[in-house]
């Protein structure tokens, strides 16, 4: 009985280590030139509200067709044109769409001024946000 405790724990630890699978996540392949990360000018409440979406359009026009919604880190074509009502945007699916400028603000991490975000091509062939803390 006395020696069974270490053996029991060793068995348990071994089982945990050996059976835990590992995340098969994405890797960043190369940066995507001509686009920058931005944030949406929306609140925490809007982020968690399932009925709230920032629409994106097929053209820079109020009559254009809505073709989707924006993620929280839109990739905006450089140079950013703050006086224009719409900005061209690269979606996470790789499509070029348009988003109203009023929804955009510069990307930042409020509590970490060293952090950076750049659009990169990911290992699955689609764009993704490469956010580095640089701490």
């Amino acid at each position, binding site marked *: 009985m006395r020696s069974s405790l270490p053996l029991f724990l060793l068995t348990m630890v071994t089982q945990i280590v050996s059976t835990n699978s590992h995340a098969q996540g994405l890797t960043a392949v190369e940066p995507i030139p001509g686009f920058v990360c931005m944030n949406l000018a929306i609140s925490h409440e809007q982020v968690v509200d399932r009925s709230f979406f920032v629409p994106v359009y097929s053209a820079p026009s109020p009559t254009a067709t809505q073709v989707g919604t924006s993620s929280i880190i839109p990739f905006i074509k450089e140079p950013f044109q703050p006086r224009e009502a719409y900005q061209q945007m690269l979606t996470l699916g790789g499509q070029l769409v348009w988003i109203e400028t009023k929804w955009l603000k510069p990307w930042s991490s409020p509590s970490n001024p060293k952090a950076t975000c750049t659009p990169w091509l990911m290992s699955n062939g689609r764009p*993704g946000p490469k956010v580095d803390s640089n701490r």
Partner: protein
Amino acid sequence: MKPTDKAPDTPRSRASLRRFAVAALCAGMAGGPSLARADLQIVTQQGGPPALPVPVFQETGLPSFTMPMGTSSFVPPPTGGGGGSGDGGGSGGTPADDVMLSRSWGALASQNATAVGVSATAIAATCVLESGCQNLAAVGGSTVSGVYQMTNSTYLADIQAALAQNPSLAGTIDTSLAGKMDPANEAIAAAQDLKNAVYALQSVGVTNPTFLDARAYYQWGAGAGPSVAQAPDTASMFDTLSSYYTPAQLANNGISPSTTVGQWRQTIINKVGTAATQPVLI
């Protein structure tokens, strides 16, 4: 016996030591810095057997992050265990399925998710992650409650959408807010939310989203889900979300300034095992 007395070397004391050691090991696996912030919450489980309290990470406006303690869900099955492979003793095949199906309402929740088009394993994994499959009441002014820890607004939007897309549910579904505290009924809304996550991910090119892909949508919101799902493992989880979540909210969800997206993904895998990599839709 005084507290300072040394316990005699009896089988009972060795069993206590063993239980303590196992509990400490599980806490070490599950914990991280945020575990110290956990509050034990009394569980009110409707129509089921008495359940142990679980540590719950509360915050306003976001589903609680809960560490299910003392269940086998921390340890994936030793074999590959695909969906419905039957390696879980007649369940959907994963430890997450086993946890949910051990509840009195589990089988019905599984059936309801399937009726919406979502895999039973995906809804079971959500149940494990959100509450340890405990029917938790809202606390602290938040509307987050139930087994699937949904806000009132999300629940109502999703339950209505589920009914609209599945008219055959009309005779059995409860679309009122009270229905959120019926776990099998809330499973319908939670399954719809996972289905919405799939649609959002498919719209950005993820053709057959897994539970892990959809998890960011469920936990962090509709707009955040695709961004997190498409981020590299090395990306900072904290800085990806910090424009929309306070450091305290992130900490309450186990995200520290040094947490990467890959580490967050791994925590999900550690908790639900092979359920993480299975498709959400059936």
